[in-house]
């Protein structure tokens, strides 16, 4: 999805529409997961839309991002098609990973999405590696990793940022601090107020932004991208945000109150805030948001129909793509199951 120019009214409208698309996608996933249509488990991005949209609007199509277990928003913001993403969640062959990945592993290399990543913190070295490729081949892309406040406690996050800082790699690290790591509060997991403070340990800039403000995120990532492109190395950005749903769908959420959730939804919602700003600036009028919502709702309904109608993969596909080269061991056991590979038997 193309870079947005957030000084241009049409692009600002586009940013709002992208946030609305993610919200509607996630609402549909919530409902259809509850109805039992979507297998596995899902982690929703509701509430954090400004981070994905703001960050990806500052990136080019060539830039790579890595995502988290809460990854649908990143996928859509990076330009993945909502129909094929939905089909992947439904485990269908039309999905981005032909049903091999599902919600937690959605990826599209063509759009620069290096994969949703449910191993907490594990996307961070991958973005570092994408930056390494850019540096070695003098390419102009950056690697950006989205990860949560919980991931900051993981060792490989530290290692990877340190490596990128040491080598001045074109990489951007975006912490989405939504105040909860699974069911644990931020305060229980960290002894600092701002996770971006750890940037000092790597000798790189650390930036704290309001993750409920799409433009603040956009500006921080734009600046980080310019720095990376100059060869000056990575930036650590902490976006303070909030997740509206539990860690996973079905989470009883004993660790927080409904009043807290309501407070964020009613007074700090990223979409409401941005839409109000655009109205004040006469970029949208009263009816525009409703029109946009109706349009994305139709898009998402179409995506669900697409996913429902898409076929399941052929069971034989379970053996494909273990390797690029033919997998002789898989073939060996398939042949044995068919009885063709055995030279033994009672008659021998």
């Amino acid at each position, binding site marked *: 999805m193309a870079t947005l120019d957030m000084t241009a009214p049409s692009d600002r409208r586009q940013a709002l529409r992208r946030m609305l698309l993610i919200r509607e996608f996630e609402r549909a996933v919530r409902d259809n997961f509850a109805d039992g249509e979507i297998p596995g488990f899902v982690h929703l991005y509701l509430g954090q839309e400004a981070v994905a949209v703001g960050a990806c609007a500052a990136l080019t199509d060539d830039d790579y991002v890595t995502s988290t277990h809460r990854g649908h928003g990143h996928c859509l913001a990076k330009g993945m098609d909502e129909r094929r993403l939905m089909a992947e969640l439904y485990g269908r062959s039309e999905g981005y990973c032909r049903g091999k990945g599902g919600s937690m592993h959605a*990826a599209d*290399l063509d759009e620069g999405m290096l994969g949703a990543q449910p191993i907490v913190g594990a996307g961070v070295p991958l973005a*570092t*590696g*994408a930056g390494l490729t850019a540096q070695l*081949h003098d390419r102009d892309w950056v690697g950006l990793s989205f990860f949560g406040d919980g991931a900051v406690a993981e060792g490989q996050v530290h290692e990877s940022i*340190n*490596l990128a800082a040491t080598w001045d790699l074109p990489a951007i690290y975006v912490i989405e601090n939504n105040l909860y790591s699974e069911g644990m509060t931020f305060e229980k997991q960290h002894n600092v107020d701002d996770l971006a403070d750890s940037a000092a340990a790597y000798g790189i800039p650390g930036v704290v932004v309001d993750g409920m403000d799409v433009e603040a995120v956009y500006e921080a990532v734009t600046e980080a991208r310019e720095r990376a492109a100059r060869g000056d190395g990575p930036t650590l950005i902490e976006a303070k945000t909030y997740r509206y749903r539990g860690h996973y769908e079905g989470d009883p959420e004993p660790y927080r109150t409904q009043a807290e959730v309501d407070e964020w939804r009613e007074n700090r919602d990223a979409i409401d805030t941005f839409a109000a700003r655009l109205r004040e600036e006469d970029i949208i009028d009263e009816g525009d948001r409703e029109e946009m919502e109706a349009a994305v709702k139709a898009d998402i309904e179409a995506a669900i129909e697409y996913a429902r109608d898409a076929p399941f993969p052929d069971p034989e596909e379970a053996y494909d793509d273990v*390797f690029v080269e033919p997998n002789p061991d898989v073939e060996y056991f398939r042949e044995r199951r068919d009885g063709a590979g055995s030279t033994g038997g009672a008659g021998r």
Partner: protein
Amino acid sequence: MSALDATGEELSVREALRTALREELAQDGDVFLMGQDEEDGGSFEVTAGLYEEFGRDRVRDTPISETAQVGSGVGAAATGLRPVVNVSYSDFIAICFEPLMNQAAKMQYMFAGATTMPLTVRAIEGAGFNAAAQHSGTVHTLVSHLPGLKAVAPATPRGSKGLMKACVRSDDPVVFFEHKNIYEQTGPVPEDEDFTIPIGEAAVLREGADVTVVATQQLVAEALSVAEERTDVDVEVIDPQSLSPLDTATIAESVEKTGRLIVADESPLSYGFHAEVVTRVVENEFYSLDVPVQRVGVPDTPVPFSPPLEDEILPTAEEIDLAVDRIV
């Protein structure tokens, strides 16, 4: 040309590996090396001189952070490079098992083939240096167990060069196990810059009619010495070279001929490489086996430090010899 009539310049395993890496660095600008002290020649000086030849972009020193080395190698491989990551002692794979097991091994599968994973991880295995439990281990069974990863463990200079080049050129992730006790071993190595050994192809290093010994790494030389010394038994020695995928056909064919099987591998005996070889032979050649199979390996202990303790647990030519006695 078979491994039996190998010709070429006489190189050590170390030189064969270095030659393979130099040739691949020269042939393909996507190839690069990273590891600790790699600019100074890396662990056991395998990459000595390559930094001077190819510069810092292509031969990189990393901080001591094996997880980030392998993890960023995965990211680099997925975005167009062909990384050769040295994690040094194979015991350290414990630290970087996450990117190895969950990323490198699974990414192609999870993404339904939308990406390739041309990653080579070098890991130095094996006992014999009194280096104690965390610098002497053999973990190739652990890696071989993981679908999506390939594991190779050559025993000869020829195998070292041919397999290293095949690994670097492979679009699949491979862990390349180097036994630290065979770096000095010498042998003929083809000089052809496009000489490779296919991953998954075993080498019959000595033909024999009576007993099949499938041996790996430093036990290959031990098995060959036993074979030469035994005048009463004609021993066939097979170096599988690749542990996963495993060349089942070559081993089964040999057992069909000999009717006897010994598996000698320097890894813990339970649940490991030995068991896989034996199982495949039982599945394919059960009625060819004349006597029960024999395993030579490490008892299920970590590797101890003190020389007599290490000697106690390390498999040797003598143990292979005793296994031959038991089986004929």
